[in-house]
């Protein structure tokens, strides 16, 4: 957490030494850094560009050697074709509803629990908070097997319940993240409201939640990304094709028949598209969330 608070200080932008004269070392270093950054960027972008390129190829150019980077003609119809080769619309609706439910459950329950830990005093609070921190260290694989047994005894296998219901029970990491944020909201605000006879629920709803929009957005966006891309949970619990998510559907699309790469890449691109759009729209929240999770969880 210590590191996270230092992020994005405005100082970064302004501390260019304007008064000092440029020394040759610095010019050389900066040029070198810029060139290296361009090379690394190319290495990072290259798989993504290869994906887009393949998705737009006519089948005669997919296996061309040397590879063709800019297909001619550009086969935009590959996207529609790929989408129709499997019930992707069905998968898309499933994934959207599933993701929305999990995001809603996570934001609501974590926000409530975080308010309890940050703003209310009760016996055992600090001990329970340490327990919460400790549970963040537990590998998901440890609880996966007994949870599966529990959900199969409940008859929930083959439904979305095992994937959605737990999200309404405040996961440790996001509760922790929001609690840290709520601690920075001055107590005077809620104290004043309490003097006027407001209940804690009212304060949570009318004071804390509106003031913590950035933190809640970070939680929502991170949960969205994680749920949209989740694979192991859905493959474990969803055993009927009409229940498949996009991730599971994509994997079956690939194994069910010998699918051609241009359709596979086109479908993959479409599956990733919502996350990419959200990323570009809310980049700041992504970066903040990643910084915090990386400072805590590595």
């Amino acid at each position, binding site marked *: 957490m210590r590191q*996270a608070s230092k*992020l994005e200080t405005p100082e*970064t932008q302004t501390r*260019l030494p304007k008064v000092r004269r440029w020394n040759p*070392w610095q010019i050389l*270093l900066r040029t070198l*850094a*810029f060139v290296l950054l361009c090379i*690394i*960027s190319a*290495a990072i*972008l290259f*798989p*993504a560009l*290869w*994906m887009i390129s*393949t998705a737009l190829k006519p089948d005669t150019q*997919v*296996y061309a*050697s040397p*590879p063709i980077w800019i297909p001619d003609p550009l086969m935009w119809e590959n996207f529609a074709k790929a989408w129709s080769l499997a019930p992707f619309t069905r998968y898309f609706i499933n994934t959207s509803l599933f993701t929305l439910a999990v995001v809603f459950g996570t934001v609501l329950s974590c926000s409530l*629990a975080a308010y*309890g*830990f940050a703003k*209310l*005093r*009760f016996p055992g*609070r600090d001990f329970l908070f340490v*327990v919460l921190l400790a549970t963040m260290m537990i*590998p*998901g*694989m*440890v*609880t*996966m*097997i*007994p*949870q*599966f047994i*529990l959900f199969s005894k409940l008859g929930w296998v083959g439904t979305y319940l095992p994937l959605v219901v*737990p999200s309404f*029970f*405040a*996961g440790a990491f996001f509760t922790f993240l929001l609690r840290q944020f709520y601690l920075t909201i001055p107590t005077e605000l809620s104290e004043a409201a309490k003097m006027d006879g407001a209940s*804690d629920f009212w304060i*949570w709803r009318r004071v804390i939640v509106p003031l913590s929009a950035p933190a809640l957005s970070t939680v929502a966006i991170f949960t969205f990304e994680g749920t949209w891309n989740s*694979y192991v949970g859905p493959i474990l619990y969803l055993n009927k094709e009409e229940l498949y998510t996009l*991730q599971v559907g*994509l994997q079956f699309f690939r194994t069910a028949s010998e699918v051609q*790469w241009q359709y596979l890449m086109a479908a*993959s691109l479409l599956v*990733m598209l919502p*996350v*990419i759009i959200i990323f570009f729209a809310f980049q700041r929240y992504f*970066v903040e969330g*990643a*910084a915090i999770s*990386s400072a805590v*969880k*590595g």
Partner: protein
Amino acid sequence: MVKRPRMSAMRRKEAITGYLFIMPWLLGFILFTAGPMLFSLYASFTNYDVTSRFDWVGLENYRRLLFDDPFFWLSLKNTAYYAVFAVPLGIATGLIIAVLLNQQVPGQRVFRTIFFLPKVLTGVAVLLLWLWVFNPNFGPINVFLRFLGVENPPLWFSDPNWSKPALIIMSMWGAAGGYIIYLAGLQGIPKHLYEAAAIDGASPFRQFLAITVPMMSPTIFFKLIVGFSGAMQFWESVLIVSEGGQGGPSYSTLFYGLYMWQEAFGRYRMGYASAMAWILLLITLAFTVIQLNLSKRWVHYEGDSR
């Protein structure tokens, strides 16, 4: 001992409200974490296999894992191999990017977006993309290697010697976004240290070794240990990239988690797999203890340097 005064009515009301607010977490903790874990601990001492048998077998599962199961050790070895390479290389990737970005180069915003992209691009779609990129015949990597004159480039996911390196390369790609934490650390290093070194005539490289590395070492060690602990849990990608999700070729991608998954949900040996889960928990715990002990020292060091 002094007797605690009875809580005032207001205090008691606040306590009840407090418990109501944390109830989602508390219930979830009991129902989905603590309860299942206790069950799993018990199951690890039985031959539970979902159907009916639930006989107490004592330490038999643990004995078999440790002394009688070559796949257990193989999966642990594969996972350790991955961790030993992927974690330091991933840290190096993030660190190098952070050091470069810290040189106040133009185009910061664009670079930051690009380096962050792999953090977002996860899931089955990206794994399929990697399969295509590493395709031995038509993938751009091998085409490029042949262009460079390599006559028989690696078969990557079809070659037991190259499947793990391919996964490590993938992990380095994903680690680029890690720069964010190192950049924060770099910007926290007091400027006057560099200024003093420059006055003494130290070259930028020397400054990097003498100032940047020691000042960054707490962050690096933290990431190293937490990274190892996380890498022990790496396996989900293998469900997609190895043939049939079986950990091939020649068990070269049979990671610990994958083997546990196969035991639990392929062969339904839940008791046996639970024992594996608890061994993993102990390994994770060991890393956490190391990390907590070291971090105590770092805080001390940092206090001294101010």
